[in-house]
């Protein structure tokens, strides 16, 4: 395969700027790589013609000295983002062959910066899942395999296609979204960098809604610097999203490489779960050592309500989902299954259109919002959510950022947890707290398991302080050295 797909986004942008190669050349290299990697099932829709058209337009802009921050860089787009004229399904049968007549605000920003779209990336249906197994298009296979094994592993979820595509060099970077860990856990499972920014940094307009008070878009990338470059172009105020924050977007890449000496790093005791795998604990200790060597001060902190975050999430997210997904009724778009009357048409449409996990969450959400249970469950969960947010506020009086593992394990085999919803939900135990509190969280590859699989560490920051996370992650990436890459078996 062409060496052009091995480049980082930063190196590719430098090469495009110096005219070492054209956007059309690097785009064609990626198209060939995607065709050769269909066994991974990372893309649910390839758009090679559109990609070449966008690449040629980029080359023309560059020739006239008019290039944007991402000009000519081929990217993958999670299928949760609506893309004008290009099928967008959230990997659900109920949306069917929906072709949006509008473009999401985040992708609009990317195209304005000159980026090229390679296609739409696989994901868990409606972003509900931690293994990409609930997709209507079938699971994604992780490019990584355990040492000496051919057993297919999940890339995590819900942004499993995004993470696998970046790890396998099928794009220079990808968009993703994170409601409970859906950027960070797959980044951890695939040796890539992912950041969920502060709630409100990226516009949610044009992204299929799952749980609106938790959903945030962010990038998955090959390096910390690449993630910073992508987030700079994705973020920004948007009047079409009432929760979008009207704040300046700094040049996040300028934070990578900054000195982190004197920063105080919190280590939350509550994240040292009973039964935490020894190699995850060792990885965490390694991260602490790197930051100490870089001159950071390590501080033990307490986030006492941590264990209640996932149960609170599994009330709040399904409640919001049951409300958001009420729009899929077969009347205005998507699939319609006729019945003998209107109610039966709704019921048939939703029964055949939604997959098992989505139905399960809609039923839970409907139950906790129903008369007699609203106060006991939904209101209680919203109060616990505030307790969790207050834990972080108190901690950030003492520290500048928090270091934790990204996930409790390395990537697991496809099918291993699909029969046990609660076991699957526990994948998000370290990531879900930041969604509830609205805080930025970044996952970076920090090491490998004894089986040779990538493992991630997570940095959590103050609201709108993504910059500090990029500085810390940059320092850790430097201390770690070059990461191994997956062997190309596909």
């Amino acid at each position: 395969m062409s060496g052009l797909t091995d480049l980082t986004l930063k190196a590719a942008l430098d090469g495009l700027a110096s005219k070492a190669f054209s956007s059309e050349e690097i785009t064609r290299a990626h198209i060939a790589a995607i065709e050769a990697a269909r066994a991974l099932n990372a893309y649910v829709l390839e758009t090679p013609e559109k990609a070449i058209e966008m690449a040629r337009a980029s080359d023309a802009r560059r020739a006239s000295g008019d290039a944007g921050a991402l000009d000519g860089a081929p990217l993958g787009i999670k299928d949760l983002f609506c893309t004008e004229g290009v099928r967008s399904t959230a990997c659900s049968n109920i949306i069917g062959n929906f072709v949006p007549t509008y473009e999401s605000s985040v992708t609009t920003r990317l195209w304005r910066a000159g980026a090229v779209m390679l296609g739409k990336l696989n994901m868990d249906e409606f972003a509900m899942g931690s293994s990409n197994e609930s997709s209507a298009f079938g699971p994604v296979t992780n490019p990584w395999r355990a040492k000496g094994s051919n057993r297919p592993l999940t890339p995590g979820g819900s942004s499993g296609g995004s993470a696998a595509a970046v790890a396998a060099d099928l794009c220079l970077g990808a968009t993703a979204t994170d409601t409970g860990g859906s950027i960070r856990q797959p980044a951890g499972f695939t040796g890539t960098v992912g950041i969920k920014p502060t709630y409100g940094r990226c516009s949610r307009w044009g992204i299929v809604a799952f749980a609106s008070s938790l959903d945030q878009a962010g990038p998955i990338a090959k390096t910390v610097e690449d993630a910073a470059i992508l987030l700079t172009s994705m973020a920004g105020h948007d009047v079409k999203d009432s929760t979008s924050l009207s704040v300046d977007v700094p040049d996040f890449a300028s934070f990578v490489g900054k000195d982190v000496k004197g920063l105080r790093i919190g280590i939350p005791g509550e994240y040292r779960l009973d039964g935490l795998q020894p190699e995850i604990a060792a990885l965490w200790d390694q991260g602490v050592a790197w930051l100490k060597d870089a001159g950071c001060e390590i501080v033990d902190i307490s986030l006492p309500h941590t264990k209640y975050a996932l149960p609170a999430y599994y009330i709040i997210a399904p409640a919001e989902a049951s409300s958001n997904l009420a729009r899929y009724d077969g009347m205005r778009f998507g699939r319609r299954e006729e019945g003998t009357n209107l109610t039966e048409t709704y019921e048939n449409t939703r029964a055949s259109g939604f997959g098992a996990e989505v139905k399960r969450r809609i039923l839970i959400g409907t139950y906790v919002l129903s008369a007699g249970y609203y106060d006991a469950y939904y209101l209680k969960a919203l109060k616990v959510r505030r307790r969790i947010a207050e834990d972080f506020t108190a901690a950030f009086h003492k520290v500048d950022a928090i270091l934790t593992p990204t996930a409790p394990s390395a990537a697991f085999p496809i099918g291993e947890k699909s029969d046990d919803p609660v076991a699957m939900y526990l994948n998000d135990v370290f990531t879900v707290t930041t969604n509830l509190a609205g805080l930025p969280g970044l996952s970076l590859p920090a090491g490998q398991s004894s089986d040779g699989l990538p493992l991630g560490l997570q940095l959590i920051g103050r609201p709108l302080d993504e910059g500090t996370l990029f500085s810390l992650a940059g320092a850790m990436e430097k201390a770690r050295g070059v990461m191994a890459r997956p062997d190309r078996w596909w």
Partner: protein
Amino acid sequence: MAIDVATVRKVARLARIAEPEDRLESLASELNGIMAWIEQLSEVNTDGVEPMTSAVEQPLPMRDDVVTEGGDPRLVLANAPKSKDNFFVVPKVVE
């Protein structure tokens, strides 16, 4: 509090999802498993705590009540399962 088959039937009806009778038992057991795990929230003292409905502490922005986009039924209907004369066609609602 356990979720029985009657509750699942009622909730599925509220959610407008047709669930066959022979699925209700196993759904009840799945939902009970999840809700039993969620029950631990009752351990948290939340006396006097305000519910947190948004991760953003800012007032909802206001704008002038004017049409900004719209007026193009062709775009609105582009993905309709059934449409006619610039309208969605839906099953009969009033008997």
